[in-house]
């Protein structure tokens, strides 16, 4: 009887033994390739034109929709941080003294290339790059104002305004 028990035991132990001579597992491989960021000027400029000094202080303003329009393109539905700061405008002939200060006003219209339903974009805030067929886009509009002081002297004032976007 003992011998039969061993045979039966062998039968039941041998089957799983031969069934588990292989094993397998897997791991998910992931990589997220982000489209690089680009800023492209669509139209416009930040030329305030000629201003006649009147001896009093005055503020000259260029509305964003009258300034420069840019498109920021990058990875769809990804947020990007936008930064900018006031710009000093100087006269090259005046060794940079008595500069004017350009205070930018930046707005965005999302995926709309036209100036429709704009919203303010503060420096350091994030903008969403809205998906357009696999490309993320947001349209940015830049205007601003310049305070002209009573003591400001005549001449051509220039400065470089820089707008930066980063993931």
């Amino acid at each position, binding site marked *: 009887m003992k011998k039969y028990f061993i*045979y039966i035991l062998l039968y039941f132990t*041998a089957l799983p033994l031969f069934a588990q001579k*292989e*094993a*397998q597992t897997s791991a998910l*491989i992931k*990589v997220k*390739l*982000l489209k690089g960021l680009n800023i492209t000027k669509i139209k416009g400029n930040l030329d305030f034109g000629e201003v006649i000094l009147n001896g009093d202080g005055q503020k000259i303003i260029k509305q964003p929709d009258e300034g420069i329009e840019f498109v920021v393109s990058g990875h769809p539905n990804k947020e990007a941080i936008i930064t900018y700061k006031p710009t000093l405008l100087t006269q090259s002939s005046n060794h940079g003294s008595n500069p004017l200060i350009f205070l930018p006003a930046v707005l965005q219209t999302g995926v709309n290339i036209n100036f429709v339903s704009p919203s303010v974009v503060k420096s350091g805030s994030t903008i969403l790059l809205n998906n357009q067929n696999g490309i993320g886009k947001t349209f940015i509009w830049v205007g601003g104002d310049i305070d002209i002081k009573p003591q400001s002297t005549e001449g051509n004032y220039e400065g470089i305004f820089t707008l930066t976007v980063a993931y």
Partner: protein
Amino acid sequence: MKRAINLFFFIFLFSCNHSFAQITSTSARGFANLIVPLSITPLSGDLDFGEIILTGTPSTETISPHEGKLFEIVGHPNRFVTITFDDVQLDNSQWILIYGGNMGTIIFVPDVELENGKKIQSGDSARLMREGLLGKLRLWVGGTIDIAANQPPGDYRGLFVISVSY
């Protein structure tokens, strides 16, 4: 009668498993060598290359094995196991279904090594080191991907499969 019963059991065992054919003329105890079932399980880590910004120039990204995923093979102590795996093709097909754009593929070339740093090629054998009643071996898996200059953006995914056998 007793011989008939014996014969019955031998026929029964033979018909149930061809592996038993070799023992019909010898002692049944000859193959009662219980072997620990083989398993391979992930312990820690991942094979996530993270976010890479496309620059328009080709690049190679690497996860070194010890920064990748750790697997543990458990089986019979001191038995050799054969380890097999293949390159993996990643694609962004799921991503373009949502966002649009072009489909792309990337080949993941695995880099597998033992805890002692010995590199393992697919098809290599390694001995399961005794730890108590079990044999164990730990494998680190990293790898490399080549990103083309014109690689379409998106979330690329693929499944790395690793097999072990006695």
